């Protein structure tokens, strides 16, 4: 019989705690939104307009010039006005009201785009705002086809995109997509309408590779792969568009290819480095993809096999000698040698230079040998 009284007490105590917590959280959760550039008036909760109060912004006292009675008036607010505003009773400094002011803008008309990069599976729609609002926005998208609403599955990431599976193929009925954006300061919307075929745009071809073809100084072999997002190349083949130019020339040359995933460029300038890109399009419908990542290649160049001219040249001879005292001495000598008139690839040049240098080193060693021996004796 002693238990009912304490249990009642517990219930009452719990209720008090809940109510307190609710009030406390209500006080903390006040948020007021203000439009950028406009005047804002914040009332001190339910305090009389004529009461004496003090306002703080982010714990800094505000000048009385901002007050109209107990109301706080902010003129032409900008983003720096966002923050926590608190109102205290004049004499007691008792907190009477607290609010988070958030300055922002109503949303402008959103930009909406729909595209199928995996036809005939489906398409996605993505959107963005032309300018930031600085406050939370919520987006609602509706997709209709043949007057029926169809589901647009939201991606986990990115959040401004959703995916629609084609329920019908080859339909002449248009898709109508409406996007509405709402925030605390306003709402806006945009609607687009399109044909199933019009939004087909593959991703760019992948793994584009360009290689020289041995013994063909004006040819380059370019290969690529279907974009991995394109699901059925057999029934929905792509055609390709290839563009290429030497690095030193701004003018592109173009080739359209109705099938296959390779092409031989036959009119390249010998010895010039080329930049090459490929785009793709469904053979029947839609638009061209963006260009693939650019690749670079230079046609095959003949390496000189014979020394065709005699020319006077210089070869830097570097010889390293290790002297008994442990001092490393680098010795340089200049001599003459015959060399090719061709500019040869660097590997060949190194090989020739070394060979020539070694020959020189043998010849020179007879001269410098006794000198070095004398040096060595001097050190010892």
């Amino acid at each position, binding site marked *: 019989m002693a238990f009912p009284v304490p249990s009642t007490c517990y219930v009452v105590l719990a209720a008090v705690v809940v109510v307190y917590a609710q009030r406390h959280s209500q006080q903390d959760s006040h948020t007021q939104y203000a439009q950028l550039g406009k005047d804002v008036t914040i009332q001190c909760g339910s305090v009389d307009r004529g009461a004496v109060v003090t306002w703080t912004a982010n714990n800094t006292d505000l000048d009385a010039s901002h007050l109209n009675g107990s109301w706080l008036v902010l003129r032409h607010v900008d983003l720096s006005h966002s923050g926590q505003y608190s109102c205290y009773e004049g004499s007691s400094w008792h907190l009477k009201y607290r609010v988070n002011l958030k300055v922002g803008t109503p949303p402008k008309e959103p930009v909406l785009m729909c595209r199928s990069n995996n036809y*005939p599976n489906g398409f996605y729609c993505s959107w963005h705002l032309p300018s930031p609002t600085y406050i939370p926005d919520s987006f609602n998208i509706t997709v209709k086809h*043949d*007057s029926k609403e169809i589901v647009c599955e939201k991606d986990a990431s990115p959040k401004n995109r959703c995916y629609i599976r084609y*329920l*019908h*193929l*080859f*339909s*002449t*009925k248009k898709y109508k997509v409406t996007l509405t954006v709402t925030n605390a300061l306003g709402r806006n919307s945009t609607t687009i309408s399109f044909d199933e*075929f019009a939004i087909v745009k593959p991703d760019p071809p992948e793994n584009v590779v360009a290689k020289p073809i041995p013994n063909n100084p004006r040819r380059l072999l370019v290969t690529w792969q279907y974009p991995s997002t394109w699901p059925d190349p*057999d*029934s*929905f*083949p792509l*055609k390709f568009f290839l563009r290429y130019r030497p690095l030193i020339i701004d003018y592109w040359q173009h080739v359209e290819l*109705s*099938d*296959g995933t390779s092409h031989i460029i036959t009119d390249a300038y010998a010895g010039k480095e080329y930049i090459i890109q490929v785009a793709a399009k469904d*053979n*029947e*419908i839609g638009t061209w993809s963006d260009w693939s990542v650019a690749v670079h290649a230079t046609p095959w160049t003949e390496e000189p096999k014979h020394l065709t001219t005699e020319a006077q040249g210089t070869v830097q001879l570097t010889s390293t000698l290790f002297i008994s005292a442990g001092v490393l001495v680098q010795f340089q000598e200049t001599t003459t040698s015959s060399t090719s008139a061709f500019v040869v690839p660097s590997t060949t040049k190194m090989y020739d230079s070394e060979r020539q240098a070694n020959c020189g080193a043998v010849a020179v060693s007879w001269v410098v040998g006794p000198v070095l021996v004398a040096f060595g004796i001097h050190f010892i």
Partner: protein
Amino acid sequence: MAAARRSPGSSPHHTDLCCRTVLLLRKMRADVSRLLEAYVEKQGLDKNFSLDLVDGVPTASTEQWSEASDAERLGDNLKAYWAFQTLLNEILEEQRSSLTPNDLDFHESIQSVLLQVSALAYQLEELMVMLEHSVPAKELEGIRGARERGLFEKKLRGMKVLQELAHWSVRSVRDLRQLSKPVQTGAIPHVSCCLALKK
């Protein structure tokens, strides 16, 4: 829908017929698109007019396209082009009699597309016979509209016919390519509809 099943027998003739059909479809699509532009302009229509209430035109739209069998694909195509033959004849007659009686070039454009549709139907029928699929029965009365239509209704109907015909031409190319896809069982495909078609 039945799973894709290939019929026995294939020859270079099949492949050649398939290729020619695809090329004809592409030519026809280009012509129909031009004709549709001209039609909308000459009839004073707007491409955005709703055509939902126009019935009796075979729609290219399909829900389970990828699951159709070869026979279903070819049969659906054939039935559609037979219907378009009738419908284009009606359109031509309406243009000659009341809508554009003096525009002979325009009539010729319609006539040209009509001939292509007839050729296409013939080739599809031939392909079905070669592949040993049964050719569907021709339903002539089902298409021909019995009731009298107003002028505006006739104009809208013509627009719908050309719109659907353009979409059918795209669908048919896909259908023919689908016929040539390798069979899942690993068998060699029996029909090869120009896997590397030149445009």
